[in-house]
């Protein structure tokens, strides 16, 4: 990682943590804010696909599909901004999908590690259970905006912390002749 990438990762990670705290601090505004974040993210994703096509995918066999996807996602992102006053569905779908997926992945990895006798299997199984509980909690508290915002904020803060740690990690490989 270059020094710039480290600083970038560090600032983004820190920003995610700050946003998570702010969201949890003010759940009423937080609800709308999260929906806005998701809409803006989708729009940004559309732009990113178009950039990806221009710089990389135009050289590949079948790369036009990236161009089409970019246009569609961008269009959908812009459209979804008009629905921000109905934000619950965004948050619930995001929470359930993300946490269920990572919960299953963590569990599979944990059980595989257990088979190898690796001590970290408990950590992964614990993370898997935690993720599945988050997904279940999102369903149970479907009608409680405050708790949904808290759950979303917790996930955001966790990702932010991982980004900060990643920015501080040693990554160089030594070459000895």
């Amino acid at each position: 990682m270059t020094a710039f990438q480290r600083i970038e990762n560090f600032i983004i990670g820190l920003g995610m943590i700050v946003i998570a705290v702010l969201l949890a601090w003010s759940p009423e505004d937080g609800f709308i804010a999260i929906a806005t974040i998701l809409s803006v993210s989708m729009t940004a994703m559309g732009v990113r696909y178009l950039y990806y096509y221009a710089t990389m995918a135009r050289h590949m066999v079948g790369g036009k599909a990236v161009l089409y996807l970019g246009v569609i996602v961008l269009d959908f992102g812009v459209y979804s901004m008009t629905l921000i006053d109905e934000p619950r569905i965004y948050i619930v779908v995001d929470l359930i999908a993300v946490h269920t997926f990572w919960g299953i992945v963590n569990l599979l990895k944990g059980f595989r590690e257990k088979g190898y006798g690796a001590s970290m299997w408990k950590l992964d199984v614990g993370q898997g259970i935690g993720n599945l509980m988050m997904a279940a909690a999102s369903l149970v508290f479907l009608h409680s905006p405050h708790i949904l915002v808290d759950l979303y904020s917790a996930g955001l803060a966790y990702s932010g912390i991982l980004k900060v740690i990643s920015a501080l990690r040693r990554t160089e490989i030594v070459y000895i002749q």
Partner: protein
Amino acid sequence: MQLDFHYYATYCAAFLAGYPHEEAQQIAYSAQFTDCCSRTFLAGIRGPRAAATTQLQTELMDVRTDIPGLQDITRIWASFHFLPYDLQAEVPGRTTRKYRSKYRMICGPNGDLLEETVRLAAGKGLQAAGLAMHVLADTWAHRYFAGTPSFVINNINYYFYELVPQDGGGFSERAVRFNSNPASPDDIEEGICTATLYRMSESSIMNLGHGRAGHLPDYSFMRYRYLPAWGDYQEIRKDNPSDYYHAFCQMIFALQYLRGQRDHFVKDRYAWDAAAPYETEIREILERRQADASEDWKAFGKRLSGKEIEDFELDKYVPEYMGAGEEAKDETFLGRFILAALAQKSMVTNKIYKSGNLLAGFSVDFAEKGFQGIRDFRKLLKFAEPGTKEK
């Protein structure tokens, strides 16, 4: 490639290169172990995790595809399974630097890095020799794919046809059908193959290596034609039986060099003469339509040496490693393999970095800047000390 070639065929190549049965088995074990030495395994034996030579499916599912994560993946897969063919390859047309970096990671046999790999293993013991044979063999099987996640390089599309040999000579063609259910085994007779999911994302782990083409590059009998994502709509015909025979004869040549029977290892040289008396038999094994040719290679190995080749047992050397004291671990079988793996990873990362390509991360030259970076590599200092090279 799989156990059949990395373990049993490597044993046969080592024996034909002149190694006695026991040493040939250790070389074969090390070659196959390169497909097993994951971080999860290393954690289980309390070994240095930076020495991982592969990643389990479960590790890949959980891997972070941020910059350090991608560099880590690239270091592992490019160093041990998809050795880049030409780090300065010219890319047709006007392209971005990012695209060129990915393009130059495409694996192929007889690149400069192969020479470096084999020479690095010289005088470093049977474990390093076995590891180098794994890398060498994979350059043939995995050619045209890159050891870094890349949609624009590693993706394949529906234009993928198997060439099935006919009894009267010639080939018939049939479209290969890919499914993405990891629980369903390949159906060779029906031409159904399990491959990774289509993900239109440059850094998705689904686009690592030959995942999109499933196990087809790993079957010695397979011939196919397809359009690689990077190939500007130029069709490629892959002839595995021919490539695998080249790999086998090149392994013998390289092992003769590592054993001291040749003064130099030069790319694109093969020990045709050593394999010639058995060519018909070897080609028959390579051509036979079967998902696993282990039994055939095992029987061939027994005819060569007159001795039974032990089945591959992953934990064979674990008690020795676990039972050794901290100072003595590097002298154990697994300890030496770990040192060889660290050295190979360090060398390949350095060459990629020096070519101006940051996909494998940063490399710090010890001679210029002293020790910096991931602590596990400190072991290499000892590995490079005079007097320890011949162990």
